[in-house]
């Protein structure tokens, strides 16, 4: 048996690299005995890494994550999901009510409300990027923290908030219902957005270098398979079907396969090749968090990221 490690995951398509690596035995090949721990939200996962309850996780960069890094508890060691021109990324949605009131493109978001889970979440960051590019002052957009994706969906569908940005499979499914409209794409505003990163505890980054390298290598194999099957679609229909089936074990497991498959296919966004990390974008995010006073102190990029594991750009 290999090293026992615990990997934190959310039941989202964006975590597929881990699921594929596990199911196809890439972790075993790397001498890792992986056990998944599933979370309802990203924030407790970051805390669980800090407390040593899990070893590796994948999540977006949030205020909580940076603050934990500032306390010397965790390090970002690689990249996962990112926005890329030409591939459907996160979409900007508006409610039917707002759409009918003329909010048909992102430049009309001034004075509108925008749903986010929490202050300092990736949704908050996306809203800020859109506002910045459209020249809308941030205080012109009313942020509504609703804690849960489900609550945001409900609020958007019933027209209580005007806008939101979310990964494509949810966005497309909502748009189909006609209660919600897609008015733009995040990758027009943040083309290089490093949405999620791989991270681990400071201790394991510093003292378990070999294990961490093996984990990242296996994770990258899973990511490559995913990109080939569902993003670039170079592996053929059969492989795509097999990959979707495999992912369905973890995502939308309570729905029948026929219903789940389109959601999984629609949700395919590129995962970083070789888990490389867009450090310049991470730094941009870090600076934004600091400017917004969502993180305290003078944490530098080196305290947040351990660049020794993967290629950075």
């Amino acid at each position: 048996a290999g090293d026992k490690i615990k990997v934190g995951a959310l039941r989202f398509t964006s975590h597929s690299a881990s699921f594929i690596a596990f199911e196809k035995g890439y972790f075993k090949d790397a001498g890792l005995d992986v056990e998944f721990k599933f979370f309802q939200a990203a924030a407790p996962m970051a805390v669980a890494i800090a407390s040593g309850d899990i070893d590796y996780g994948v999540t977006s960069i949030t205020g909580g994550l940076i603050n934990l890094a500032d306390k010397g508890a965790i390090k970002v060691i690689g990249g996962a999901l990112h926005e890329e021109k030409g591939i459907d990324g996160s979409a900007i949605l508006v409610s039917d009510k707002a759409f009918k009131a003329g909010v048909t493109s992102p430049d009309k978001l001034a004075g509108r409300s925008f749903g986010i889970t929490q202050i300092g979440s990736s949704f908050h960051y996306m809203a800020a990027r859109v506002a910045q590019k459209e020249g809308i002052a941030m205080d012109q957009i009313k942020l509504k923290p609703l804690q849960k994706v489900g609550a945001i969906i409900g609020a958007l569908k019933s027209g209580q908030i005007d806008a939101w940005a979310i990964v494509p499979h949810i966005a497309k499914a909502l748009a189909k219902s006609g209660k919600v409209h897609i008015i733009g794409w995040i990758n027009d505003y943040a083309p290089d957005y490093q949405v999620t990163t791989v991270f681990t505890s400071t201790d394991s980054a510093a003292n378990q270098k070999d294990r961490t390298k093996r984990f990242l290598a296996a994770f990258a194999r899973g990511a490559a398979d995913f990109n080939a099957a569902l993003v670039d679609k170079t592996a053929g229909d059969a492989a795509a079907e097999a990959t979707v089936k495999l992912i369905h074990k973890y995502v939308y497991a309570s729905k029948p396969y026929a219903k789940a498959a389109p959601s999984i296919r629609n949700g395919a966004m590129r995962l970083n090749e070789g888990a490389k990390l867009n450090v310049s974008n991470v730094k941009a995010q870090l600076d934004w968090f600091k400017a917004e006073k969502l993180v305290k102190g003078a944490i530098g990029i080196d305290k947040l990221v351990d660049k020794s594991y993967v290629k950075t750009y």
Partner: protein
Amino acid sequence: MTSGSPNPVPFRGGGFKPKPIGMVGPIVFVAVVALWEVGSRTGFIPALVLPAPSEVFEALRNLVETGLLWKHLGASLQRLILGWTIGTLLGVAVGFSIGLFSLARAGLGPMVAAIFPIPKIALLPLFVIWFGIDEGSKVATILFGTFFPTVVATYGGIDNVDRNLIRMGQSFGLTWLSIVRKIILPGALPAILTGFRISTAIAIVLLVAAEMIAAEFGVGAYILLAGSLMATDELVAGVAILSVIGLTVSWLIGRAERFLLRWRT
């Protein structure tokens, strides 16, 4: 009344004693569900606002058929039982010391009063650090939730034990331990059982909070997942399961009360 001929005395008693009317409860329940179904079918209640009862029922059937119900229930019940039992044992122990010893009362009493009103969900991030992400933090959440009301109910019960009975015990030269075991414990039992009613309800409520943290199975996790996907049918189904657990536990405590307190009028 000012007439000369014999008059029967007018009746003016009775009333102020609501009597159980057998079938009304079930009838109201069925009527509400039926109205709700009709409202959903006719579109009067939009699906977004509330799923139809038939959909909720469908979601429940799904749970049963996939066998997931037992996994969820099993996981949740295990947490409930473990957390509640430990919380209750500790709570009764601390409640007894506050009830019996001046020093414990002076030292622990204010602490309990200050910590009791803290919402457990607010502490979740800290619970992860303190108790890990496995069963520890889930059980701890429930344990904390049950501990405080149990403490308060227990020492309240002890304070209410008839001091005459204690003096009687002393007058027969009973030992301190005998008095505690034979007089104070049974005397405080009714209040402690009432405390159990409250603490079990709180434990069920906290199940959702507890299973926010890395829970794969569990009714709370099921509800949270449903909520995050806005799957209202499953959401309401999960809530119905909690409701049934609540009613079952309350019935069990009722039985326990009838058995343990059969000496009461």
